[in-house]
């Protein structure tokens, strides 16, 4: 399988007044297409910073990040926006749906920015909602949906653009156990049945167990990188 993500010596340094914060201190990471990777670590370990860079929301201070062979560091802001639009889907801890906007329109959003005709946007969005089991809820507002349902709308929004990479930042952090199980079942199905690469940030070990590979971060570095029992058949771990 081809490498989807390859990071070499990624550094991210923030400057807060006079204090220099090294959020990432030389991260090397290789993720192949179709992998299901969990990134774990305490808060402040740099996992969110890494996610932001992998999601093309942020740029590394130093180092090289290639997504499908393209060096993202050299791209302009609007090119990064296009990559986010076409290749990356985001699922956030707090769902991040646009309030007072129907589920269907929330899911349409990536297609809207891609400039598809309205009819096509609607059809694809309805199909994506059906895939996460929300047919019939198209016209509900986020406030009319439960947490689990909102997160499913968010997954549908991430899926509708048929991305090659799905980034899930603590997707079950705000959900009860039952909803968490449902969401993880959906993500697992997307990975297993449709081959979408998923990177999951979490600090719950039972959630991380769904992944086939577990990367643990500490102080801006990768501490361990190993196959999980469920992912025993996965490819070699070390990049």
């Amino acid at each position: 399988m081809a490498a989807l993500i390859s990071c070499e010596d990624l550094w991210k340094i923030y400057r807060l007044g006079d204090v220099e914060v090294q959020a990432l201190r030389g991260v090397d990471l290789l993720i192949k297409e179709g992998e299901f990777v969990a990134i774990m670590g305490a808060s402040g370990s740099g996992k969110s910073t890494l996610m932001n860079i992998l999601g093309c929301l942020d740029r590394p201070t130093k180092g090289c990040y290639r997504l499908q062979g393209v060096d993202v560091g050299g791209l302009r802001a609007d090119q990064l926006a296009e990559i986010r639009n076409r290749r990356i889907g985001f699922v956030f801890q707090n769902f991040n749906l646009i309030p007072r906007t129907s589920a269907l329109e929330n899911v349409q959003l990536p297609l809207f920015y891609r400039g598809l005709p309205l009819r096509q946007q609607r059809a694809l969005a309805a199909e994506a909602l059906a895939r996460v089991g929300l047919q019939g809820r198209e016209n509900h507002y986020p406030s009319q949906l439960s947490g689990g349902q909102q997160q499913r709308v968010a997954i549908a929004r991430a899926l509708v653009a048929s991305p090659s990479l799905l980034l899930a930042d603590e997707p079950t952090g705000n959900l009860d156990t039952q909803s968490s199980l449902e969401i993880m079942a959906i993500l697992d199905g997307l990975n297993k049945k449709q081959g979408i690469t998923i990177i999951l940030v979490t600090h719950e070990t039972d959630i991380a167990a769904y992944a086939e590979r577990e990367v643990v971060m500490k102080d801006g570095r990768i501490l361990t990188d190993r196959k999980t029992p469920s992912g025993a058949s996965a490819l070699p771990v070390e990049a």
Partner: protein
Amino acid sequence: MPTFLLLTALTAVRILGRNRLRTGLTMLGIVIGVGAVIAMVSIGEGAKAAVAERVASMGTNVILILPGAVTTGGVRGGQGGVVTLTTADAVELKKRVPLLRETGWARRDVMQIVHGNKNWNGTVNGISPSYLTIRGWSFTGGGPFTQQDLDTAARVAVLGQTAVDNLFEPGEEPVGAIIRINHVPFRVIGTLAPKGQSAQGMDQDDVIFIPFSTAERKVFGTYFLGSVGALFASTERPEDLAPAVAQIREVLRQRHRLQPDQDDDFFIRTQVDIGKVHEETSETLTIMLFSIASVSLLVGGIGIMNILLVSVTERTKEIGVRMAVGATRRHILIQFLVEAMTLSVLGGCLGILVGILGARATTAVAGWPTIISPETVIAAFVFSVAVGLFFGLYPANKAAWMNPIDALRYE
């Protein structure tokens, strides 16, 4: 892109519709501003048209020559202090200035006029027959007097509408009746169509015209024969006015034997000069009202900017989400600009409505003439779009240049 713009506009309308009170208050400034501009300009235009109409009622391409001040031994007399113009001047001008179509003269005095048991103090004008054509008077009954009436100093009179109203019973036929002007009997041979107020606000219809010769010999009396109150002339085309004035001046200076170092002993006014003064007055008024209205538009624009800045801050997280799913800076910029322009265009349309109603109300209540020209409406509309664009630019830019991560993390 067209799909994007259309959907963005629809979204903007929906977002603004959710917060009706806020939207309404934000638009209020623009509504008042545009409404004020439209109402003010239409009042100004109406006033200008009324002035133009009055100036036109003087006749077309009229030149007015008035006796001027004469300096005698260092003492300067006032305007009209000395009689300097004569009928002979008019005859000579007609001969020597070919640009003039006609010349005429008049002398006026206020006199007691009696008919039956009614009497009236009216302005009696002794005139040359050409005067009525130069000033563009038309008849409602009877006709003008002739050269023969002038030659024989006939006692005939032509009455303006106000004189008719004050001397005759309603329905009574004035033509053919006998009136007495300063005890001298006159036969009425014509009545004139009303002209209304002059540019100076005087009643132009309060007049009685009699032949000049009759006036000077039988009614007014005179110091020397042929001295007149004013000379009148007209040209064929408006562009002939200026050269004609120059030639008239030269001929009159020569006839009056004025040395190069002496001032003119006459004044020359054209219709254009008279119209200009009034136009400038109403223009000044329009500019003043327009600037007041513009200030209100400016305040309205600042109101829009203020609310948009609040809106951008409130929706920081939404902006972050939109960026995360692939919105470019341009998309965000356009979204907020469209919102600003929706506000200002909606406000502008309401303002146009308010302005038109305001102008109508002014006409109905105060009786002022108002004119709402399509140009004014279009200009007001364009102006409100411009206000939206200008004051939307800063908040929209602020939204567009947010860092996606900071926007996403904003709580």
